[in-house]
């Protein structure tokens, strides 16, 4: 009897220890996701209301030019950000993987931008890209008078400045992911390829990079959700300007919910963002879990 009780306690203890945090997550994450979804079907303006109005908020949302602009910007920003980060990260990782001296020093140098918050990144790049105090100004001081770099001040190019800052922040992290992947590749395979006379270029193209497929997938998932929820970088770097040129869904959602007293429309945009993230994450999780099932069987 005593034994049975002790066994039961041993089995239950981890569950007991985890239950408070589980309850908190259930309420504060999933509970509020449900609440936001509910709000998106109500006519909430400045305060949450309970009058259900069906899909009207979604109709309004997709009639707003601002929302279309935010989606277009997300397309440009997200696409370029993911593409450049992956290419640059892979390139740096391959270079670092050549058993060079000082790797221990160089790796942290590329990784450190990840340690600063997006607010700091945004502010620093805002100054650096500003023509009157930043890069252009310095070039003029050094005597290169014809140099112009005014992207951050132009409506059509400001979004690319956001890409530059975000890539600077994240590509080191992607590099670390690829580096871990490269280290995991069996040397025997590469030796065999070398014996067969494969050039380094072919070795990477035909063998190494295909073997890194899971890393590509992880990098894509991490970067995609970061792109969709980008908020602080925009606020610090351009504050949505010039005009409204760098509005993203996250800044749109904040402004409609909290400054424009259109909580219903804001909640609808939040739900759309959640669906977008879910569309990326859920298949990924599913495939991850299925692979584990395979390994077990």
């Amino acid at each position, binding site marked *: 009897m005593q034994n049975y009780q002790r066994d039961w306690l041993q089995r239950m203890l981890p569950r007991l220890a985890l239950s408070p945090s589980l309850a908190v997550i259930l309420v504060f994450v999933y509970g509020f996701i449900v609440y936001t979804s509910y709000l998106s079907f109500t006519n909430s303006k*400045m305060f949450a209301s309970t009058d259900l109005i069906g899909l009207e908020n979604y109709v309004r949302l997709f*009639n*707003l030019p601002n929302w279309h602009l935010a989606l277009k910007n997300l397309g440009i920003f997200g696409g370029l950000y993911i593409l450049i980060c992956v290419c640059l990260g892979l390139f740096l990782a391959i270079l670092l993987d050549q058993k060079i001296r000082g790797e221990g020093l160089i790796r942290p140098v590329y990784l450190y931008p990840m340690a600063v918050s997006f607010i700091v990144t945004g502010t620093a790049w805002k100054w650096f890209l500003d*023509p009157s105090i930043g890069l252009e100004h310095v070039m003029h001081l050094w005597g290169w008078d014809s140099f112009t770099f005014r992207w951050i*001040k132009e409506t059509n190019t400001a979004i690319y400045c956001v890409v530059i800052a975000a890539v600077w922040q994240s590509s080191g992290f992607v590099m670390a992911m690829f580096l871990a992947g490269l280290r995991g590749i069996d040397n025997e395979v590469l030796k065999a390829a070398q014996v067969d006379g494969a050039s380094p270029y072919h070795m990477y193209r035909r063998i190494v990079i295909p073997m890194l497929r899971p890393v590509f997938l992880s990098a894509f998932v991490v970067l995609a959700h970061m792109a969709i929820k980008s908020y602080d970088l925009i606020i610090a770097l351009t504050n949505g300007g010039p*005009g409204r040129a760098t509005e993203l869904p996250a800044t749109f959602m904040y402004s409609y919910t909290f*400054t*424009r007293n259109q909580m219903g429309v804001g909640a609808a945009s939040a739900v759309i963002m959640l669906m977008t993230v879910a569309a990326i994450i859920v298949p990924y999780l599913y495939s991850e879990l299925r692979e584990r099932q395979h390994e077990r069987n």
Partner: protein
Amino acid sequence: MNLKKLVAAVGCASIALIAAQNVQAAGKVEVLHWWTSGGEAKALNVLKDDLQKKGITWEDMPVAGGGGEAAMTVLRARVASGNPPTAAQMLGFDIQDWGAQGVVANLNDVAREENWDNVIPAAIQRFSKYDGKWIAAPVNVHSTNWIWANKKIFDELGLTPPTDFDGMVKALDKIKAAGYIPLAHGGQAWQDATLFDSVVMTTGGPEFYQKALIDLDQDALKSDTMKQVFERMRILRSYVDDNFSGRDWNLASAMVIDGKAGMQIMGDWAKGEFLNAGKKPNEDFLCFRFPGTQGTVTFNSDQFVMFKVGDDRAEAQKELAKAILSPTFQSAFNVVKGSVPARTDVSDAAFDACGKKGMADLKEAADKGTLLGSMAHGHAAPAAVKNAMYDVITAHFNSDMSAEEAVKQLAGAVAGAQ
């Protein structure tokens, strides 16, 4: 047994604590605001000291963030949890929205006692009252149709304050030709909209302003006058420097202070920047109304909304409301803040030249019925409409959009946001 004793002891202790808190709260006001910068905080101290003399403790609840968005979010959470502050700083239509929620106090007794109805301009009362009840105490009146100019540059070029828009353009041309930046401006949506306030007023006059920006009349929004407004915005755009976008308003003020730029179109909070830099009105800088808007005032007014609190705190709340509108506080606070008192019977002895002018202008506009809420600062149309207008104004100002297109978009955006 022991456990029971413990529970009893804890129970007693907590009851004692609650009782003690209630005793302390008898003369306490808790005030939520976003006046955290040096001058503003100093001005609030006047109010604190005033109440302290009456034996009321002031519990400060500052929430940083210039526009008060963060403060509003905090306020929503507090009211939702049934624990509202005694008073909260607020602007324009937000006051009405809170009034509709049925969570605000009724200050009619205080208003009667203090004769608020007769000393506060009707245009401001429109925001302070909900459904015929006083729910807020206005602290100040800012106005947005001001120009702040560098006197040295004006003297050097032999310029005097222009009186109409064409004169303004001539003056700007002269400043440009002399190698200065004509117009110091920061390209942020609300600053672009601040220019827009004045341009609408000078182009269409107060009736048009009322129709287009307050009544949101579609015909006025689509009119040729509005097209001309956007054309004039484009003209002003040609006088700002290349690096204007994203610049904060106080940095634009600094350009005028340092003699890099000729003038800035900005509300009277800009005066504080000039005074802090040790500049004197009419000696170092000029303050005049935007050309063609003399006699009208586009205003925004900070108010303290009073919330329904328990009987134990109601008395202190009334004292707070009284103190806010007392002439001594109104004078002391507004001298520091750069705004003018919300009541028109306060002596202007303590104010500088710009303040005196502001007070005279306010009185004149209030009497003539040309005291109109500023669109840029949320006193003409509710937040949803205001921001929809911002979108168009700032998009037009920051691109090469045509005036026709801007008019079309403005009318559409306003209709869509209502």
